[in-house]
């Protein structure tokens, strides 16, 4: 049903197939956890380098086990629940934010098609037909964790933090979805496997001709900005702005429940980066080693995974770089950027893309159509900007 596109299920479901699916689930879960451990260490090391510090250096070689040690410490800490808290919802909230982060990662294609114990299968947990929509559904569910954590704490700062968080997440969800539309128009399918197949490696020029980052370049930029905002990553970390909100929605959380919130946040960041790789950078597509057989272990298993993780690490490095260098936005700047720029741009870009695709189908003169469409979009954007109220025109300045 929901997994049916995978060739694994072509010949019916028997015990072996069930075992393979369970195995894949465990591997993907463990992979995500290990990636979070490594990412936190990587982030701390890179930021330390950028600030002329050493960073974690004691636990394990180069301090790589530091996060593991922190995690074990969190497990053994006391978990307090405030008197005013709604204790059931308070306990539920961390899991509500961690579970969707994991489920969304299930649709990411990590490698190509491989054969496990005689069964052909994709190196990805699930390939539902609705594909990318599952990501949107999960980010919608993920909001509940943040919102309920703030409300159930029965305390002021968490409530303020969670209201702020939900406003931010709802605002950027629109731009985020519209940016994905920019890719879907080119790929013609929602399935992540289908999107990756549309970006297959055909030669060294595939980098610019096959991968969707080039034809959907503006959508790519909007996607990156909106994804950073969706994951509450700096410079959009208003949700936990320490100077204003103590710690935001998780102020009252201690011990491993606090840890699960952080786990969810980093899992979201990794999932979003992996989705960006899938949608715009070709996922596992990349040159294979020509001197080895095409269906051998190296070319079927290792090379696609290598390309996927290489692209993932490059994007994750970008997020660390942004974290280290950009200051946090003010709340009104955040809302202005989301509502007045990103949504409009993403909308107009989707329309321009539609026109270009129709022009290609109808064999119109592209040299004429593309600039005309772009100019038309710019004119509409200018008109919309002119119609917007200037700051202070209609309302008193509140900032």
């Amino acid at each position, binding site marked *: 049903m929901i997994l049916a596109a995978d060739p694994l299920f072509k010949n019916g479901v028997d015990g072996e197939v069930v075992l393979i699916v369970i195995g894949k689930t465990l591997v993907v879960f463990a992979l995500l956890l290990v990636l979070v451990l490594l990412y936190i260490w990587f982030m701390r090391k890179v930021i330390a380098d950028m600030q002329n510090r050493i960073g974690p250096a004691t636990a394990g070689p180069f301090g790589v086990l530091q996060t593991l040690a922190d995690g074990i410490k969190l497990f053994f800490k006391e978990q307090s629940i405030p008197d005013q808290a709604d204790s059931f919802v308070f306990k539920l909230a961390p899991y509500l934010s961690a579970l969707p982060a994991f489920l969304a990662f299930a649709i990411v294609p990590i490698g190509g098609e491989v054969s496990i114990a005689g069964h052909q299968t994709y190196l990805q947990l699930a390939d539902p037909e609705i594909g990318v929509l599952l990501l949107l559904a999960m980010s919608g569910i993920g909001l509940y964790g943040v*919102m*309920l954590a703030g409300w159930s704490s029965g305390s002021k700062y968490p409530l303020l933090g969670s209201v702020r968080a939900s406003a931010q997440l709802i605002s950027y969800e629109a731009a985020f979805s519209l940016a994905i539309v920019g890719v879907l128009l080119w790929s013609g399918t*929602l399935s992540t496997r289908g999107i990756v197949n549309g970006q297959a490696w055909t030669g060294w020029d595939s980098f610019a001709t096959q991968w969707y980052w080039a034809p959907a370049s503006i959508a790519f930029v909007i996607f990156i900005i909106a994804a950073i905002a969706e994951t509450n990553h700096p410079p959009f970390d208003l949700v936990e702005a320490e100077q204003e909100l103590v710690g935001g929605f998780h102020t009252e959380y201690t011990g491993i429940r606090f840890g699960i919130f952080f786990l969810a946040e980093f899992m979201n960041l990794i999932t979003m980066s992996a989705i960006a790789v899938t949608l715009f950078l070709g996922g596992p597509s990349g040159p294979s080693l020509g001197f080895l057989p095409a269906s051998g272990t190296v070319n079927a298993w290792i090379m696609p995974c290598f390309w996927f993780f290489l692209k993932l690490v490059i994007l994750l490095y970008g997020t660390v770089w942004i974290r280290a260098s950009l200051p946090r936005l003010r709340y009104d700047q955040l809302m202005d950027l989301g509502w007045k720029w990103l949504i409009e741009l993403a909308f107009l870009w989707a329309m321009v893309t539609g026109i270009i695709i129709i022009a290609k189908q109808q064999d119109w003169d592209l040299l004429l159509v593309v600039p005309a469409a772009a100019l038309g979009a710019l004119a509409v954007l200018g008109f919309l900007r002119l119609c917007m109220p200037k700051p202070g025109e209609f309302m008193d300045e509140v900032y």
Partner: protein
Amino acid sequence: MAEFVIFFIMAAVALGAAISMVLARNPVHAALLLVTVLVAIAVMFLLQDAQLLAAVQIIVYAGAIVILFLFVIMLLGVDKSESLHDPVRSQRPAAIVLGVVGLAELLFLVGHHWATGTSSGPGLNDGSGGNVERVARSLFTSYLWPFEVTAILLVVAVVGGVVLARRSGLPPQQELELERDDDDTEPDAMTESTSEVSAP
């Protein structure tokens, strides 16, 4: 067999959550139980191979509408206490009558194959491609007109909401001045009206 088992589990979850939603005293708990009902029904859609509908159900209802409910509950602080006093007394008998009529209708429909059996209309089972493709094709070919009319209806609703949210029909600049005058004469009009909402 698996379909049967999943259906009964999800039906039990949906019914249980729906009943506890009505009985819940805390509005936030009620909202959470509503989400449970919606997710359980989304699973049933999946069971019927209506993948797009399941995704839309979660994105739109769970991801947007109930979130807005929660927003209202949190911002207005109506979660403190709930008055069971019914301002419109005639509502109760009307609700009972409507409920009985609805139940009778449901029981009547259950016994008729045209309500539960295979549909004879131009259904989604026609044509090739996956579920998403087929829904898209019928939405943008056979049912384009109702689709567009619904879109206009939604825009009208949004514009209406914005217009209603503004208090007067005056242009914004004059309205602002009006509000300033109001503020001069009744300095705590706003605080009074909000405290009324949250008072038991």
